[in-house]
Each structure stands twice: as C-alpha cells, then as structure tokens.
C-alpha cells in the first residue's frame, strides 16, 4: 500500500512540476525549450524501449518520429480543411498510427537478428526513407517541407493553441501519459520477454517465444511512441522537413539515451532534458557547441557507461546510509581539477574556432569578460598550462575518489 502511495506521489509530483514550470520560466525561449524537452523525453524513452529493453541498437529511430510528424502534419491540414473531425489534442495519435504502420513493416524486416545486423539494417532503412523523402514531394513537401496552422478550432479543451504555453501544456500532458504507459509496458509479459530476448535470444526460443516477433512487437510499440513525439513536433513547430527523418535526430536520440543511461527506466528522461538544454543554450553561446557535446558523449561512454541514471543509482545506497558527506571532499577535488582541465581545453578550442571561423581573426576575442588576441602567445601558454595542470590533478584526484569510494563501501558493508 505504501508502495502504491509512493508511486502515485511521484506521478502527482511530476504533473505538478509540469504545471508550475512554465509559470516560473515564462519567457518565450524557456517555453519553447520546455516544449522541446517534453517531446525529446517521449522520443528518448521510446528509443530506450528498443535499446535498453530489447537490446536493439538502432541508428534510424527518427524514421518513425519523422513519419509520425509528417502524417500528423497532413492530419492537421485535413482538420483545418474540415475533412477530418479530429480535435487537435488527439492529433499526436495520427503520428502514433504512422509510427505503428512503419514500425510493423520495418520492424519485421530488421529484427530477424539483433546486434550488428539489426544496427546496420536500421541505418539502411534510415537512409532509404530519408532519400525517398526528397523523391516524394507530395507527401514530404520537398526541400521546404510541409507546414500547417495548428489553430484549427476543433479542440476538446478551451485552448485555441495560439499561445506557446497552451502547446506546452498539451505536450506535457501527452508526455506524462506516454511516460506512464511506457513505464507500465516494462512490466507486461511482452516487456519482460523483451528483456529475456535481449539477454539470451537462444534460450527465449526454448521457452516458446518467436524472438523475431518479440522484437518486432517491441519495435512497433517503440515506433508508436516515437510517432506520438513526432506528432507533437508537428503541432509545436507547425512545420516539418525531411531533416526530421534523417541521421541527425536518429543520432541525437541515441546520445540522449546513452547520456541519460539505458539501464534504468528514468535515464533517458535525464538525457533528453540535458541534451535539449545543451542543444538550445550552448548553441547560443558558442559555435563549437557540437564539439563540447561530442566531448561530453565520449566522456560519458568512457567513464560512466551507465549514464547519469547509473551514477545516481550507484549513489543511492550511499545516500541511504547517510555517508554522502564522506564522498564530498574527494568529489569537490575532482570537480575542481576537471574544471581546470575543461577551462584549458575550452580556451584552446575557442581560440582555434576564432582563428579559423571568425570573419576577422585579427580582432580581439573575449572569454569570461577577458579580452585578448587569439594570436598572443600568452593565451596559448595559459591554455596549455591549464590543461597540463588540470590533467595532472585529475589523474591524482581519481585515486583520491577511488579510495574514498572504497572506504564508503567498506563502511556500508560493516554497517550491515
């Protein structure tokens, strides 16, 4: 009983956060960021139905997101023309339907084997659909894509969807419903058997399962939720181009999911929030944002392969044992040395970007309010020194962290 109350509490809290967030961060930029985060969360969780639950590494998940988006966009236009009497709130379902149909077909084609075979086929299908998008301008709208007006007057709620905040609330509502459904799906027979097929497809066949069907169905459900995310994309932007189907969103959903952590249900949520935040805010600050993003991704794969969720879950027992403060000194040391290392690397990156990409490299540049010329030797010396010092202390403090981590685990064992 207490368990169920706790569970309900989490969902209520999430709903409350969604209701309050746009009131706190009410600027246009914040609202559109929050909307994108909501869409990205659904998309990343649907990706994890494949990767985390089913062990299928897809390089083409955006196909279902994009196709869903296009279908929803056409549906919005049909609603606007009075052909289709579907209220706007339910339009993402059109996207979901597109995802299901495409997912069933391409899922069946690509899931005979998992692993490399599956990954390569997904890549091929991604390229195939992206290429045909330009060949079928009547559906995909060619270079300029398809646009629509979401203020269709056919609505269930009183919302007219002229304001971004109304769109956000629609996205948030769909997001909560989708998270809930995807969470429940992990607890159904299909969800569990998808885990079994992921772990050991050979054995799964000997307990009665056609592993290809298990993968296909899991794939189709993932495509359904990706299609809903695409439908929300259509409503949010009112324009969709063939890029949405392509390799870039396919890659970024993979990175969101990995950075968030594939091993825990909530991992991709963290990844989607963080990556969307970086995509939108870093892009305003620096041209080199993709490079930083790449560094983060590589760093996570190297040092935290279980993602943010993995790091959090690793610390849960420490937190419960009340030993978190024992780790703090070591963690602040490594944070400090990483910061020094990062500042050095960043200075070097920015100098180089300035030299090769700015209109006039001779103009002085500025970092943190310090103005200097990119050609000045001092800037280079400072950057390299920061990197060396930072790296040295980073290696040193790694040992400190390991030692205090071992101490803490020892204390937890002793405490039991």
């Amino acid at each position, binding site marked *: 009983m207490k368990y169920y109350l706790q569970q309900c509490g989490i969902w209520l809290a999430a709903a409350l956060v969604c209701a309050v967030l746009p009131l706190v961060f009410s600027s246009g930029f914040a609202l559109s960021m929050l909307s994108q985060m909501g869409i990205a969360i659904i998309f990343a969780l649907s990706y994890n139905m494949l990767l985390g639950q089913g062990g299928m590494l897809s390089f083409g998940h955006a196909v279902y997101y994009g196709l869903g988006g296009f279908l929803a966009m056409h549906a919005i236009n049909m609603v606007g023309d009075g052909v289709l009497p579907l209220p706007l709130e339910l339009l993402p379902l059109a996207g979901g339907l597109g995802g299901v149909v495409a997912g069933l077909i391409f899922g069946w084609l690509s899931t005979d084997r998992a692993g490399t075979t599956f990954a390569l086929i997904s890549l091929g299908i991604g390229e195939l659909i992206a290429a045909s998008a330009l060949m079928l301008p009547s559906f995909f709208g060619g270079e300029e894509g398809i646009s629509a007006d979401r203020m269709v007057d056919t609505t269930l709620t009183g919302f007219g969807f002229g304001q971004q905040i109304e769109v956000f609330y629609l996205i948030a509502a769909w997001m909560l419903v989708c998270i809930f459904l995807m969470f429940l799906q992990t*607890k159904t*027979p299909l969800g569990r058997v998808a885990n079994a097929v992921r772990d050991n497809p050979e054995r799964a066949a000997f307990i*009665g399962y056609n*592993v290809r069907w298990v993968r296909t169905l899991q794939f189709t459900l993932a495509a359904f939720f990706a299609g809903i995310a695409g439908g929300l994309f259509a409503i949010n932007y009112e324009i969709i181009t063939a890029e949405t189907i392509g390799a870039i969103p396919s890659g970024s959903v993979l990175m969101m999911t990995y950075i968030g952590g594939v091993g825990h249900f909530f991992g991709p949520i963290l990844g989607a929030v963080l990556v969307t935040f970086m995509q939108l805010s870093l892009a305003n600050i620096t041209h080199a944002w993709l490079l930083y993003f790449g560094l983060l991704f590589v760093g996570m794969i190297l040092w935290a392969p279980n993602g943010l969720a993995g790091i959090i879950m690793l610390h849960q027992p420490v937190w419960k044992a009340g030993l978190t403060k024992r780790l703090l000194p070591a963690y602040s040391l490594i944070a400090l040395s990483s910061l020094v290392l990062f500042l050095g690397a960043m200075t070097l990156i920015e100098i180089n970007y300035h030299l090769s990409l700015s209109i006039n490299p001779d103009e002085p540049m500025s970092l943190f309010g310090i103005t200097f010329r990119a050609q000045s030797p001092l800037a280079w010396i400072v950057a390299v020194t920061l990197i060396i010092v930072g790296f040295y202390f980073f290696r040193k403090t790694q040992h400190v962290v390991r030692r205090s981590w071992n101490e803490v685990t020892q204390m937890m064992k002793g405490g039991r």
Partner: protein
Amino acid sequence: MTALKLIDVQKSFDHSKIINGVNLEIPKGERHAIIGPNGAGKSTLFNLISGFYEVSSGHIELNGKIITGLPPHRINRRGLSRSFQVTNIFPKMTVFENVRCALLWPMGYRYSFWHLCERLKKVNEKAEAILEKISLTDRRQVPAAMLAYAEQRALEIGITIAGDTDVILLDEPTAGMSHSETDRAVELIRNVTEDKTLIVVEHDMGVVFDLADRISVLVYGEIIATDVPDNIRNNLEVQEAYLGKETA
C-alpha cells in the same frame, strides 16, 4: 504410447557426418539416458530434436506428430523443452523473473502488453512453487548471473520444467558439480520429472544408472545399443566401445 520417435535421423556438417542414421523410440513416461564417448554426437542429437539444428535427412516425431524442420519455439509449444550443457539462463534478470518468463507463454500470456506481470496471480504462484522445488526461494531477487554454479544449474532446470511440457531434454545436468551437489541435482531431476518423459545426456555413470529406465549408447553418430541399465552394463560391445575404458 510413444513420446518421441527418431526415424533414420542424419546430420552432416559440411562433409563430416555427425549423426549417422539414428533410430530411437522412447515411450511416454520413460526416463531415458543417452551415453557415449566425447564427440559421439550426443549434444548434436539434442540440438536436432529440439529444432536448434535442422536434420539433414530422416524424421522426428513428438507425440505421434512430425516435428522435423520446425523452429525451436514451435517444438517447445508442442510440448518439448530442454536445458543446455553450458548454463543458458537470462543473466541480467532476477531468479524469479527467469522462472516467470518461462511461464508466460505456456500460461497463455504470450506477447501481451495489456497485462501487468505483478497482477498475474496464478503465474506468480506457480513461479514461487517452482522456486520452492529448485530450492532457490531465498535467492529470488538475485540477478541470475550472481548465482553460484550449482544454483545456476538448478535454475536452468527450473526454466526447463516451468512450462510443464511432457518431454524434457536435459543436457549434462550435473556436469561440473561436486558429489553432494550431484546427489541433490539427481534428487531434483527425479522429483520434477515425475510422470514425464525425460531424456538426459550424462557423463556421470552413477547418475545414469541411478536415474534411467533405459539407456542408449551413442558411438560415432550411431546408437549401438538401447536397453535397460543392467543389460547395458553387461553388453560386451558397449563395454568395448565406451565403458571399457573406465572398467579396464
């Protein structure tokens, strides 16, 4: 009534013949052991019966119906389940989940994504009962990969018998076990295969003569004798081909 019938089953890999015309008839309810020297083709025979390999020629009948050429999951659904020589479980899932997964198809929940496993009372009760049988109740929440070797073997048997199939194939169930573990495993096998047809590949002769109603001796892909344990023990050809090495 015949549970399993092999009619002139042959299997070749490239040019080498591994199974060379095996004929075998196992009546319902029998505990049948297949013995033979290393490389005789015992595991291959299991892989053919369970559909993991396709036979090159010949036929296999399960409960009077031909199952030749069917994929493993279809053979399983028709009432045959197997264990593996190398432990073959779902390592990242808990012990309980391992057993429960093996129950979902036979109990009719198949590919359902509209039931919640926690609510499937009968499935969960049965999973608990199987855990009880294989003495892993207090390890139920442990990921299967963390179990001790003998425990993993027990879980392997648990997964194999979960579906309540009437024909059970066990591939070297006691391999790598200590004496006391072997005794316990034999007890478990005897217990869980009550009223079922059991076919077991085993190297431990103690286990074989203890457990089997009849024994087949497989040498170089051919069955050279099928008989009750006492006659097998006294069969000269068998002694020469196989047991001879141990008794000499």
